[in-house]
């Protein structure tokens, strides 16, 4: 399973992407990420109000079916553990 988090917008208008491939993780951690990712379809939400806010898009590939949801910063509380896990890695820019 591949999990990708995209953050766009903000004052600098810089798009960053963090991704994780559960095949490259130790078994226990891969299972934990997959458990979190299984909830992702419920995380869609409105953009943050105002201007220069960060916008997030989360994509899950290789699960039972592909999921793509968008939400404004800081994101739904349920999504935070997965977002934090992804953001531990080094992002790729555009």
């Amino acid at each position, binding site marked *: 399973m591949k999990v990708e988090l995209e953050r766009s*917008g903000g*004052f600098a208008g810089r798009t960053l992407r963090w991704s994780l491939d559960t095949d490259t993780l130790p078994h226990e951690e891969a299972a934990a990420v997959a458990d979190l990712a299984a909830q992702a379809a419920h995380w869609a939400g409105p953009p943050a109000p105002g201007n220069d806010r960060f916008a997030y898009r989360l994509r899950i590939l290789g699960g039972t079916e592909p999921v793509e949801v968008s939400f404004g910063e800081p994101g739904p509380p349920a999504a935070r553990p997965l977002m934090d896990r992804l953001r531990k890695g080094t992002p790729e820019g555009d």
Partner: protein
Amino acid sequence: MPVSCVVPPTVLLEIARRGTPDQRTWALWTLATDTSLRTFRAVAAVRPAGLVAAPLTGPSDTPKRTVYDGAGQEQLPGKLVRDEGTATTGDEAVDEAYDGLGATFDFYLHSYERHSIDDQGLPLLATVHYGDHYDNAFWNGSQMVFGDGDGELFQRFTRSLDVIGHELTHGVTEDEARLTYLGQSGALNESISDVFGTLVKQYHLGQTAEAADWLIGAELLAPGVHGVALRSMKAPGTAYDDPVLGKDDQPATMAGYVHTTADNGGVHTNSGIPNHAFYLAATALGGKAWEVAGRVWYDALRDSRLKPTAQFHTFATTTVRVAKQAFDNDVASAVRDAWQQVGVIR
């Protein structure tokens, strides 16, 4: 954002006469925001002695600033650390925000006779030290928010006066043209914040269009980053090119317009096109950019015919029309020429 009064004045007057002290204070304050003469006479009749006179003569020429400390949390507004007329705190972010809000207030007042965000003296609220190494500044619909930056790419966002002017201008745009934050109208919204943000800095420094650097966020790039700023209105696409930060991808003309689903359709990217048009108009007109080019853009932003969904072309023709109204054919032709150079007007 005018204060809306949903309770009829007759009811408020009744509360002002017979309510508890708290109710009386609230009712009088609410009535005081209604500046009609009829209400003025009615309030004068019930105002208790000793109550501070409410401003019934229009907005003040001094700002009402309040700065909060977010203390590393993502919660607003945070703890009040400095309000209007109080001394410096020694916290650079707090004092930069306070001074920057003041410089922006002065710019709008003296350049366009505008009293704050809503032209009615709206208090200016800002939170600094928002979030943990937070790499951003934003307007949340009612206040400005500034992060400290990650320290490696970006330093604290209050370092750049144009960034403070940019955020406050989002409030002005929300009060005037209400440009939809998506696609071209969103890129116009962004560009207007860059235009007036950089004009705040030029006004503060007393710079002419020729002397100005036309950079956005020059002071907040961390040492060692390969770049001069976050954006360049003079040469969009050249502000930075760094192995970690990446490369400035702003287009200067319609030929480079970026189609993307990120960032509300690339609002911080395609803003390079109207940004460059403003730079070209301002430098062609010469002198202090806020006096002629800035006035034209300000009039366009306030034009009643400009819709929230306005695209580049409509905004461009609006600036040409208002330039003719406020100035003359020469100014209008310089403005038209600028939009032609960036490919918005053929």
